[in-house]
């Protein structure tokens, strides 16, 4: 009898402890949200230098990064590949200069200055409609204590993230992009990182070979800033839930005569681009599905135009967007 009493007591205790457990769920999400906000702050404001490895499918890369904070618009960073052919990207003064093996491209423009119409990470409510935030405990990366959080998609239209954040300042020390089935598509992990009070300007000088007159020679592309589009013949009729149009530009490559329309959609984490370009006799770039590293692409031809949808989202998502694109030439006329 005594034993049964004890058993009942244990049961009562267990039952009593259940409600607080389920109540702790929203608190965990709130904590994760707090960490996410810390991370966004630190990626914009911190000055740091470090080395990381980047794994994407079967490929492994080592890279060096120098980053100088200062808030949106004044952030600067330099990325240098440490393995394989030398590749370099400098993002500074509203310009992106890429030194890549075959092409050297400069992307100028004020896209960094223009306020992003949809800064969803700053609107957690919106983000959490399509992603679930979770705290996953602690770990260690690059010799530093890290807090692990998960951003899990609530449907199959988007990828998820797992993030290891520096417990001192929220800096992302490791990140894993997980596909719709939960497999890692892409991973980045610091092996060493140092926070600096200040970073010398020389660290962000354009790569040496980026001569200013390089725009004319073959293999160099200067990509001018886009012009906002107000009237377009193109409509994207159906977007997967949560994706909103954030920009619609038209840009012309210096090397070609093509004007390309570029529509950007975002759900707060994932960004999907739609490129629309008239094919003047040349064969299409892409028809059907393709994988660009961790991004998926879908190409199709509509009325003599190449339609290309690219984004870090599942293949089904880019395909669905491509399928809903409509061309109405009369709507594009001023």
């Amino acid at each position, binding site marked *: 009898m005594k034993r049964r009493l004890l058993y009942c007591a244990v049961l009562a205790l267990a039952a009593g402890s259940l409600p607080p457990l389920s109540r702790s769920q929203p608190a965990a999400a709130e904590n994760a949200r707090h960490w996410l906000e810390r*991370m966004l702050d630190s*990626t914009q404001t911190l000055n740091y230098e470090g080395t990381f490895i980047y794994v994407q499918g079967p490929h492994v890369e080592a*890279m060096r990064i120098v980053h100088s904070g200062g808030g949106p618009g004044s952030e600067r960073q330099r990325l240098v590949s440490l393995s394989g052919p030398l590749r370099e990207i400098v993002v500074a003064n509203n310009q992106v200069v890429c030194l890549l093996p075959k092409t050297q491209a400069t992307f100028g423009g004020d896209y960094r200055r223009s306020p992003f119409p949809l800064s969803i990470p700053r609107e957690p409510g919106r983000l959490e409609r399509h992603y679930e935030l979770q705290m996953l405990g602690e770990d260690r990366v690059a010799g530093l204590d890290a807090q692990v959080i998960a951003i899990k998609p609530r449907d199959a239209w988007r990828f998820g993230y797992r993030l290891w954040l520096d417990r001192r300042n929220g800096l992302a020390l490791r990140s894993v992009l997980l596909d719709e089935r939960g497999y890692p598509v892409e991973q980045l992990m610091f092996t060493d990182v140092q926070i600096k009070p200040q970073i010398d300007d020389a660290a962000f000088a354009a790569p040496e070979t980026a001569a200013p007159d390089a725009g004319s020679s073959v293999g160099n592309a200067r990509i001018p800033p886009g012009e906002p589009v107000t009237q377009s013949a193109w409509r994207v009729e159906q977007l997967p839930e949560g994706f909103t149009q954030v920009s619609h530009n038209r840009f012309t490559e210096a090397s070609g005569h093509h004007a390309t329309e570029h529509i950007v959609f975002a759900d707060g984490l994932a960004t999907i681009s739609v490129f629309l370009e008239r094919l003047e006799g040349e064969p299409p770039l*892409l028809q059907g*599905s393709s994988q660009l*590293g961790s991004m998926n692409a879908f190409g199709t031809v509509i009325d003599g135009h190449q339609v290309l949808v690219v984004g870090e989202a599942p293949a089904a998502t880019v*395909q669905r967007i491509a399928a809903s694109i409509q061309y109405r030439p009369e709507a594009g006329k001023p």
Partner: protein
Amino acid sequence: MADKTAELASAPLADDAPIAASQLSALVDDELADMEINLVLRRLSRDHEARDRWERYHLISDVIQGHHVPAALDTDFAARIRQVIEAEPLPQPVAKPLPAWYKPVTGFGLAASVVLLALFGLKLNQTDALQPATPLAATTANLATPTPLPIQAAALTRPVTPAREPVEARLTSYLVNHNGYASMSGVNGVLPYVRMVGYQSQPDR
């Protein structure tokens, strides 16, 4: 969504590792993940002994499940499919390869996909409702007859190879433009640029 980071890390991923009996058995029972199927198929193509074993497993599986067992056993089915694939003409070399990050799905893994289709009747991942019906559909229909395999037709659906220079410039400008926006709206502003650097080093296929 389950996170399989841990399992993957411990999975033997080398192409030349011997195939475990359990893996073969799982392949026969269609219990392997897509990634693993590709891997096992690659190993199968090199390991003659494993291929024989795999054919026996299929036979066992058919008998257990009460399926029709042919009067004469075709023990060389896999070998013949491999021969047809090997006899297939290689793609013409192009003057200058596309940027590394431009990888049409149709080219890669086609042989493996065809083998999958032929042996298991599995659907291809890349069958798009949007694309015009490819000869692959015809391949499926003809699979009931063991010979001759119409694999050649499927292999002909190769990506078009447009003139190099403008294509590269266009794709690069697309990528730079996309990543410009991705770096602002994404979870980690550094990642889009890392991706750009990463793509450029991947060996051309």
